[in-house]
């Protein structure tokens, strides 16, 4: 069968062709919105017209079977219109109020989870992990599933002091927004790469391999036409492995995850912040990483118990102080918590004010 005629550099289709008619009519003319439940909100236009959004969790990794089911429900209740959020939720855009309940009923009967709107835990943004990434130090989808099962009530009904945004990255490359999340899990390696000199010679470009190292730990090994690593300078980031695969960094015995807290991207109340280290290492324990879910739950519970309304995790910690954070969470403070990378001195306490 002949192939259809290919076209190049046409870019994506125009978004207007994918907007429900009520959105086309009220584009840029919305007046306000109301959160009606964990998984339902309504936007009201200056003309009085409304659009309801029913938000549903997805695992991001979706089969065509499930996407076809979304499409079928969109046809049945939404005039065929559906969108995805930046946090991998699915949003059914309902223009006719009487379709909301039947849609919610069908979603419930099919065990879809509605929620994620407002001051709750929304879906966890994450990376590819063991599904196919070459540099993963843990699996991302499995960690997300275990965490979201634990916090399902906070997605659907229960509320938190402010929204809680979580992320999981399967290595320090951080394809997810781990570096600016309320609570995030980042997988780490802890052993120096093992160099296969014969393969490095044939497969790798030495200068770019050396340049990939953030700490200058890699130098040429001219005798072997390979490279060598100054072990005490290596921080196991794996950037060299990405550039030069025969520098094997995986080590199932020592790989695992770290937990970081207190980041945000919004400018509300306080400026955007990076996440900071709370727990330097938890062993990989698939399939459900019970130690990780327990640790995250400990931090979340401390936050819920003590934070003021609208305070994000990072704002709560800044108000109470980091020494208090470690105290109320019971987390040990270790050498790994004290920065020794590029901005280390900015993080040292240059004041005599702190709590006991």
């Amino acid at each position, binding site marked *: 069968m002949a192939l259809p005629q290919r076209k190049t550099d046409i870019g*994506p289709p125009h978004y207007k062709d994918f907007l429900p008619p009520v959105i086309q009519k009220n584009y840029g003319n919305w007046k306000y919105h109301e959160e009606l439940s964990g998984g339902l909100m309504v936007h009201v236009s200056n003309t009085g017209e409304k659009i309801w959004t029913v938000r549903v969790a997805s695992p991001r990794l979706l089969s065509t079977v499930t996407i076809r089911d979304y499409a079928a429900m969109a046809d049945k209740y939404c005039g065929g219109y559906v969108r995805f959020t930046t946090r991998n939720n699915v949003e059914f855009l309902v223009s006719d109020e009487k379709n909301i309940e039947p849609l919610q009923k069908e979603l419930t009967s099919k065990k879809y989870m509605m929620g994620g709107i407002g001051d709750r835990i929304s879906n966890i943004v994450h990376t590819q992990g063991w599904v196919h990434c*070459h540099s993963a130090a843990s699996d991302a989808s499995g960690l997300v*599933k275990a965490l979201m099962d634990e916090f399902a009530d906070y997605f659907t009904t229960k509320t938190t002091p402010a929204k809680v945004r979580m992320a999981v990255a399967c290595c320090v490359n951080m*394809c997810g927004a781990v570096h600016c999340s309320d609570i995030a899990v980042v997988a780490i390696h802890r052993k120096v790469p093992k160099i296969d000199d014969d393969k490095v010679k044939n497969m790798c470009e030495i200068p770019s391999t050396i340049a990939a190292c953030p700490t200058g730990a890699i130098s040429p090994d001219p005798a072997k036409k390979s490279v060598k690593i100054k072990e005490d300078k290596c921080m196991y980031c794996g950037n060299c492995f990405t550039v030069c695969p025969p520098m094997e960094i995986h080590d199932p015995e020592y790989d695992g995850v770290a937990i970081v807290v207190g980041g945000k991207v919004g400018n509300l109340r306080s400026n*955007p912040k990076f996440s900071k280290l709370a727990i330097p290492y938890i062993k990989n324990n698939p399939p459900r990483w019970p130690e990780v879910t327990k640790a995250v739950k400990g931090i979340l519970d401390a936050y819920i118990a003590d934070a003021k309304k609208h305070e994000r995790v990072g704002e709560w910690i800044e108000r109470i102080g980091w020494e208090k954070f470690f105290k109320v969470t019971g987390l040990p403070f270790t050498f790994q918590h004290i920065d020794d990378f590029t901005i280390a001195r900015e993080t040292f306490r240059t004041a005599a004010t702190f709590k006991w």
Partner: protein
Amino acid sequence: MPKKYQTPLLDELEKGPFPSFVTEIKKAAEKSDMAADELGQLEKSYRDRRGYGKHGGIVGVRGYGSGVIGRYSSLPEEFPNVANFHTVRINSTSAFFYTSKFLNEMCDIWDKYGSGLTNMHGSTGDLVLLGTNTENLETIFAEFSSRGWDLGGSGSALRTPSCCVGPARCEWANIDTLAINYAITQEWQDEMHRPAFPYKFKFKTAGCAVDCIASIARADCSIIGTWKGNIAVDQKEVANYEKGGMNIQEEIVNMCPSKCMSYNGKELSIKDADCVRCMHCIAKMTKALKATGEKGATILIGAKAPFVIGATLSWVIVPFIKMEPPYDEFKDLIRKMWEFWDEFGKNRERIGELIIRKGMREFLEYLGLDPVPQHVKEPRRDPFFFWSEADLAK
């Protein structure tokens, strides 16, 4: 019939209320040999606590240097159907709106030529098709492009730009994020499909400082909508919020970072000249407060994940720019930035890293921008500053 694998570990991840990715892979594995082997290989990863994805040769479609990422199994003999497991990035629509018609067509193509597995969406915002063979790539591209869809970016190229839901369904949007996102994507198709940059470059457009697209953390160029006028206050709605149980003093006034608000129990007053436009009060009292006056965007540059010098957030380059079609001023500014990067950037150096290495002064001078206090959190503390001949002559 695709091969059936025993997956006792992954089966544990089908339990619990949250939708399961394992169930998704199993659904695809009923029809696809590739998805079946993916499931088998993933079970082995769970057993061995390590991934079996592998780097390999570059693959793509004719005339393009990006859009497809070659992925391979490091265990091709054990799992032959994922020996190739290439990723195809389809450029998503602005703000991820779709029709059922397109989704069904996409599924038809992908069931025929791929594993039936997707990511909706990848971290950068592409519609990601997970797992196909090299020989299917041209066919997949012809099927999509003939229906009006194109590939996204990969490698040292412009990556697929993305934006928040903006004016399509949000009352806070100061700029038309969907239109800007579409315009950027169409303007720079060549930059996206034929990698010619020192490294990757990402645009993200947010309608306001709530930044639902995480532009300040995740884009080399963050475009954040803002305004110059006052916040209009509807005192009747303020009263309604109080009646509804809101503690306006605690929740709004005390949480204002610039302390520009006061509330006497009846009226909420705002000293607009002191407002920094953080969006807290507007977001919490959306019926009562509204940004008015001149609208535009703040352009910030440089966010990236930790490699190589540590993670960075974008920083202000242009505090305020009008963002209206055809966006000529903005486009010229970006071209000038890319010229600077092309001239001085090293291989695999992001534009933010280059600015840090060369100094803000060189970058701003190259762009022809004057220094303003909005560029910094605070002036320098050290006494080590440069004087050019021109400075001395002043």
